[in-house]
Structure formats: C-alpha cells, structure tokens
C-alpha cells in the first residue's frame, strides 16, 4: 500500500473514531456546564501535520460526518472545519512553526473559530428564541477546555498518522539536527563552496 492510501485510510478511521467517542462519551461529560469539542482540535492537528490541502479536505469530510451523525444542518460544520484545516495547514507551510506550544494556540484559535462561526451562521439562519449573554461565557469556557486538550489531541493525531505523513515537521527537524543543518543547501561547505585555505595548499 502506498503512503497516500495509507494516509487516507488513517484519516478516515481517525475522523470516524473521534465522532463516535465525542457522541458516546465526551459530549456527556460537562465541566462548568459545557463539554469539550474534539473535532476542531483534530482538524487543526491534521492541518498542522499534513498541510493545507489535506487539512481542508479532512475538514470538509469530518464536518459532513458531524452534521450527519448529530443531525445538524448539512454544510454548516463543513464550512467551518474547511477554514480551520486550511489555515492551520497554511501556518505550517508558511512559517513551519517549531515551538512545542503551537498546537495549544492553534487549538484555542480553532475552537474560537468553530464557536463564533457556528453562532454567526445560526443567527443568520434564524433563531426562534432569545439568545442569552451567557452564550459568550459558554463559548469562552469551551475554548479554555479545548485549549487544555489541544496538546494531547495533537500528540495522539501525530501518533495515529505516524509514518503515513510524508513530512512530519518534528521528524524533519530531528533529522536536520542530527545531520547538522536544515537542508543540504544550508551546509556551510555547499553554501560557501571550497574554503580558501584548501586552494592555497
């Protein structure tokens, strides 16, 4: 089996397992009246590990699955998760962030986008009941809880995807460290050419 097929299978299994665990257990465990929402964290993690295209595609698929399983309006969650997956992937591609706490910030941002985006879309679609200001508090607590879960979720996602990821950032950095540079182009001998003292010999 080639690497791409392996990655696709792992992503499908991951999305499916997260939806089932979310529905059967996580949603029913509340802290300060709200429960954690794992899927934005998973989509963000996949974007950070695999890139923008994979992140966006997983976001669409996972969002569709969530909308189907939880009997929500189809397309709403997909739209939000596409943005989360794409932009977390773009951050990886543009900045290649090395700090270990990047998933933490990414998790907070992804959850905030999911929460605020969902609120905006629902208000645009029409809400029949008065909206309480406590909604803001609930959204804030959800962001906090998800931020705490972002690092373990990122670690689990990285482990699940494992060798299927062509360019895992951490593996690439580790290899760069052991080989003495970020890439062959940046090795001093290749960058500077032949050293002067060797020509005078």
């Amino acid at each position, binding site marked *: 089996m080639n690497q791409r097929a392996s990655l696709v299978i792992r992503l499908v299994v991951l999305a499916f397992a997260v939806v*089932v*665990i*979310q*529905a*059967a*257990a*996580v*949603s*029913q*465990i*509340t*802290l300060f*009246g*709200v*429960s*954690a*929402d794992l899927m934005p964290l998973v989509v963000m993690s996949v974007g950070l590990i695999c890139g*923008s*295209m994979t992140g*966006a*595609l997983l*976001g*669409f698929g996972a*969002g*569709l699955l969530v*909308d*189907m*399983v*939880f*009997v*929500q*309006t*189809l*397309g*709403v969650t*997909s*739209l939000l998760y*596409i943005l989360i997956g*794409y932009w977390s992937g773009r951050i990886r591609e543009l900045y290649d962030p090395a700090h270990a706490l990047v998933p933490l910030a990414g998790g907070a941002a992804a959850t905030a986008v999911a*929460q605020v985006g*969902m*609120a905006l879309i*629902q208000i645009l*679609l029409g*809400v*029949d*009941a*008065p*909206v*309480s*200001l*406590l*909604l*803001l508090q*609930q*959204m804030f607590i*959800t962001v906090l809880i998800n931020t705490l879960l972002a690092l373990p979720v990122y670690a689990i996602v990285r482990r699940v995807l494992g060798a299927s990821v062509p360019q895992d950032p951490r593996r690439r950095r580790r290899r760069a460290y052991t080989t003495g540079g970020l890439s062959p182009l940046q090795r001093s001998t290749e960058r500077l050419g032949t050293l002067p003292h060797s020509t005078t010999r």
Partner: protein
Amino acid sequence: MHNKHVRRRRVTLAALVCASLILLTAYFGGSPSSPLHTIQRGVVQVLSPIQQGASTVLSPVRDVAGWFSDTLHARSQVTQLRKKVERLTAELAQAQEAEILNRQLSREVHLDATLNIDAYQPVTADVINQDPTLWYQQIEIDKGSGNGIRLDQPVIGDGALVGRVSLVGSSFAIVQLITDHSVDVAAQVQDQNGDVGILVPAVGDPNELLLQDLPHIVPGQPGPQVGQLVVTAGYKSGPLQSLYPRGIPIGQVSNANQNNLINNNEVTVSPAANLRHLAVVQVLTAPHGQAVRAQVP
C-alpha cells in the same frame, strides 16, 4: 510548478467551500422528505448500533467523570436544598389537604384527574448520543418507530419534561430538548392563579428557560413567586398547540423580578431535569392518555 500547485490548492479550497454552501442551502430549504434529509436519516440509522455499542463500552468513563461533576455540583447545593426541603415540607402539608378535598370533589363530578405516567404508555430508552454544540440541544435514543415512538411525542427524564421527538428511525429517535431554540411549551405556574404562558429557552444558557406571555399583572397584584413549580399546561396557549399532557413538571421559577413581570410578562424558570447528564429517558407514546379524563354527570 509552484504556480500550478498554488492554483490547484486555491481551486480545491474554492470547490470545498462552494460544496458546503450548496449543501447548506439545499438542506436548509429542503423539506424533511428531501434526498439530503433522507440520506442523513440513513446515515444515523446505520451508525446507530455502533454508537449504541460505543455508549455501552464508554459508560464507565462517563460515569466516573459524571461522579466528579455531580459531587462538585452537590456540594454547592447543600444549603440551598436544605432551605428548599423546609419550604416544600410546609407546601406538602397544604397539598395533601388540597388533594383530599380534590378527591372528594372529583368523585362528585365524576372527573378523573388521576392520570399517572403509566397511562401515557412510556417507553424507556437509553441516551446513546448527545450533541456537543451549544446550538443544537438534542439527544439520540436507542428506541424508534419499532417501539411505538412517533414524531412529536413528549419525552420525560430525571422526573421532568426534557423535550419532544423530532426525528424517528426504525431503531433510533432524535429528541429535541426543551433548551433547543426550536422548542416551546405551553406551561402553567402552580400558583394560586394558575398563570399560563409559553416556555421558550434562553439560547446559550442550558440552566434557564423563559416563561413568556403570562397574563398581565398590575403592580401590587400577586404573581408567580420564586420556587413555584412550573408544569405542562396540556392545552392551547396563545399561538401554541400543546403537544404535552397536562401536569408534567418542567422546573421551578428561579427569578420573578417584578419589573420584568409587569413590563414583559415573563419569569425565568430553571429546568428540573439535568439536561446535560441524561442517561435514560421515557417517551410517552400515548400523550393523550387512555383513560376518559372527564365525564359530564
């Protein structure tokens, strides 16, 4: 090569966003029998046994977490509950006296008002799925049309009304909770006036409902008081045709601010059932009861 890659990425993103918007528009404008709704029901039907299994397997995890959550919650409520017990003891004495009187009068006019939950043919079901979002307050249960469950039947749990059936499959049903923005209930405050209004949720606050459209109260006139029980009215109130049988507890008046009552004709109600920790519920499959409720002598 680089431009080609960028172009492909942008085209893919645009295609995915367009697909989502098309799905959203088609689903939102479609009837419940539209192909998208049918596919969604099919997917839930297929996944329902898997979720049921997962729910059973993961129940110990849920129970442990629930135990910690409940303990913290219970500790904060001890003082409040002690006061409530004192008040309810006094009310119980009055209620027992009223019940004796009611029984005597009912016998005289042949009015059978003693329907209990069994008369509504309750079907007990396990909760196998709960929506994590703040906007969709709904649960999935492991009983469906094969067990006599039909659309719009009332659902009770934790000793109170929790919602109504909004979608039915052969082996599953989706229940919209009373805190979902699309649910409203004709409800009655059990005070001396028996004020009736429409109970609607306050979106974003799972612990609060608003009882609106109460009869106008002039300053100085007694209205609903904090702590009074709110039950289903069981009959039409304003624009709402009640789907629910009469007398099912919903919650208690938690805030009866006089200004709010006089100006907006509404009070705040806290649900009696803990809607985020429902493990088992009962669907009332005969919501209008079996017994003849009233007879003219």
